[in-house]
């Protein structure tokens, strides 16, 4: 088991986005979270590199990512008024793609800010 140490790691649990956390990982899970608060600790230790979920689901049945991507594109393209919603726990790079997609399909884009 090779241990990796990441210094000045960034926590994305809350809006503080603390970027001074030292993470120790064993390739599969995070074993130590130096400097993280109780919420950050739970956040980092709650996610692993394991394959715990199917790659994709279509109507509850397991599918490949390619099939799911096609199905998603079909639904969004066929809709008259599609909505892209959320965007809070994804990167800015993903948010840019989401805006682009919303423009392509002529939809509405919205985040948690509107709640």
């Amino acid at each position, binding site marked *: 088991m090779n241990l990796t140490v990441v210094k000045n790691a960034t926590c*994305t649990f809350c809006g503080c986005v603390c970027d001074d956390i030292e993470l120790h990982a064993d390739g599969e899970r995070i074993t130590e979270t130096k400097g993280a608060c109780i919420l950050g600790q739970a956040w980092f230790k709650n996610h692993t590199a394991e394959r715990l979920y199917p790659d994709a689901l279509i109507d509850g049945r397991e599918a490949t990512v390619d099939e799911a991507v096609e199905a998603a594109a079909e639904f*969004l393209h066929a809709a008259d008024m599609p909505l892209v919603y959320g965007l809070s726990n994804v990167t800015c790079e993903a948010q840019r*793609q989401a805006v682009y997609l919303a423009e392509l399909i002529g939809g509405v884009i*919205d985040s948690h800010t509107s*709640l």
Partner: protein
Amino acid sequence: MSCTLGEVKNRADLIIYWGGNPAECHPRHFTKYTIMQKGKYVPNGRKGRTMVLVDIRETPSAKAADLFLQVRPAKDFETLTILRALIKGRRVDAAAVAETGLTLEQLEDLAHRMKTCRFGVLFFGMGLSMTRGKHMNSAAALTLAAELNAFTKFVTMPMRGHGNVTGADVVMRYTTAYPFGVSLSRGYPRFNPGEFSTIDLLVRGDVDATLVLGADPGATMPQPAIDHLARTPTIVLDPKVTHSSRLARVHITTAATGITAPGTVYRMDEVPLPLRPPLSGPYPSDEDVLKRIVAAVKRKPAWEPAGV
């Protein structure tokens, strides 16, 4: 008017939290950015700062405060408006003061502290912005802070919850000019909260397909909104199979932001920070999946706004 958390650390001698509980919701806010730090112009750290907490109940954050003001529920707008009057030296109606649950002495003392501090900051939480009055409450807080700049330097900052919700505001602002609730259905951006905000759209049944990412509305939204998500095709991208995934037609598992996926996120003061993921997982990133959906949509006939 806002500033970075670095400026708060180095300059603020009056720190007000209104309708928020950072001790439990943003545990390192006090120690990393605000009251506990020694700053360039606040060399004595905690001793050089005054911390005021305004809330409807005495939360654990009150222990950290020099002054706790318990305002009556749903009277935030009234309290902020009375403070605006007091700051300008106007007389206020005793009955209006009584309604807030605070005394005139408490409010005059707070107004005095606000006017005489060197650098004041008002952090407001969802207890202000999401309760009765909603955006009018936020507007009252912003106006109060703006008016205080006639006397001293005063800024406000919302206490943002989820990791990169600030980034969503920033990215939508620089791509569409508006921060949230943007319709592109006419081929150009239109902004109208209430019309293009998600809960309103879903409850009215205005949308006929939804792509959800970085959120779990199936667990958090009002039932009529959830019902509409189940009634129409919903697509979920998430590192876990969530409540929303269970009512969706399509779920795609993606890498966890900052843990197995790299990228950039914005802190609540709009400072962008790079992620340093410690693990590499089996799932593609949200960005990657979105690019593939974009490519798949592009292979279909182009959409044109009605009437063009």
